[in-house]
């Protein structure tokens, strides 16, 4: 049995992408106001909306939301470094998330997929930081980020799943 949700298309899809992008940008900007004990560590609530777009309307929508968020947040913050690291993180995490959800949806729960996605994002981000600075010792920071990714990944996955169930009725019914 395919456990996937019914997918929205057409104008509803456009509305969903816009809604998810807007929410991702707002939560992303709000998140940067919370100083976390370790730099580079993020709550990642904005990822809920990537995942939500993937669940409700497919890989294309998810990529749209991720790319829109990345660039619009860059226009807001002007932080070139976080743009590069974020792009590298997405380059790794989007394919992982999409392949896991599209191909292995029946075997994997959404929180598990989300955790794998958070892992991939952090690995991509750290790889970009190492390449940009030429300092491999930055990798020693990875265990800390990955430990945090387990918690945020599970929370994000759970939240996206719940939102998908509730929003399905708003978006999918006439």
């Amino acid at each position, binding site marked *: 049995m395919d*456990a996937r949700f019914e997918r929205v298309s057409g104008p509803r899809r456009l509305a969903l992408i816009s809604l998810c992008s807007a929410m991702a940008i707002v939560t992303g900007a709000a998140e940067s106001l919370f*100083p976390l*004990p*370790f*730099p*580079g560590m993020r709550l990642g609530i904005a990822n809920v909306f990537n995942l939500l777009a993937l669940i409700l309307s497919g890989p294309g929508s998810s990529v749209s939301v991720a790319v829109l968020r990345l660039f619009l947040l860059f226009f807001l913050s*002007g*932080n070139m*470094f976080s743009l590069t690291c974020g792009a590298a993180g997405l380059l790794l995490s989007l394919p992982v998330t999409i392949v*896991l959800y599209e191909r*292995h949806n*029946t*075997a*994997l*729960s*959404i*929180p*598990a*997929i989300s*955790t*794998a996605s958070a*892992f991939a994002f952090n*690995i991509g981000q750290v790889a970009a*930081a190492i390449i*940009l*600075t*030429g*300092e*491999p*010792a*930055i*990798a*020693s*920071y*990875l*265990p800390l980020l*990955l*430990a945090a990714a*387990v918690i945020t990944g*599970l929370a994000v996955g*759970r939240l996206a*799943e*719940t939102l998908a*169930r509730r929003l399905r009725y708003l978006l999918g019914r006439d």
Partner: protein
Amino acid sequence: MSTDTGLPSIKRGDLVLYSVLAVIFLASCAASWFLLSGARDRSDLVLEAVLDGRVVESVDIESLKRESTIAIKAGGGINILSVGPGGIKMISADCRGGDCLRMPMIGSRGGIIACLPHRLIVRVRSRGQANAANVNAIDSMTY
């Protein structure tokens, strides 16, 4: 159609995925242990400031008997390090994020403070490691 039971959903493949993630996590722990070890003997430690991949400042940790500050011009701004017997900490930086100010103090066990907007890395490592890295840097410059 699945119903919202309020319980965390677990599927049969999850355990496999979590195992893979655990292996990745352990591998990253091993890699970081490997990167941070080797700098244990305090008499052999050097503090290095690396700007854009080049060592711009190198100080013997042994020589740091009392608190002092080092100012480093980096990426169009200035970073100020507090160095002393207790350890090394970034105390001032005019970069956007200020993340380096929140990084934990580094010292006798090796470690790294990064100011990414200024592309500045401050690290503690053993002289042997530092020399080996410099030799590599020269090699990589020649081709």
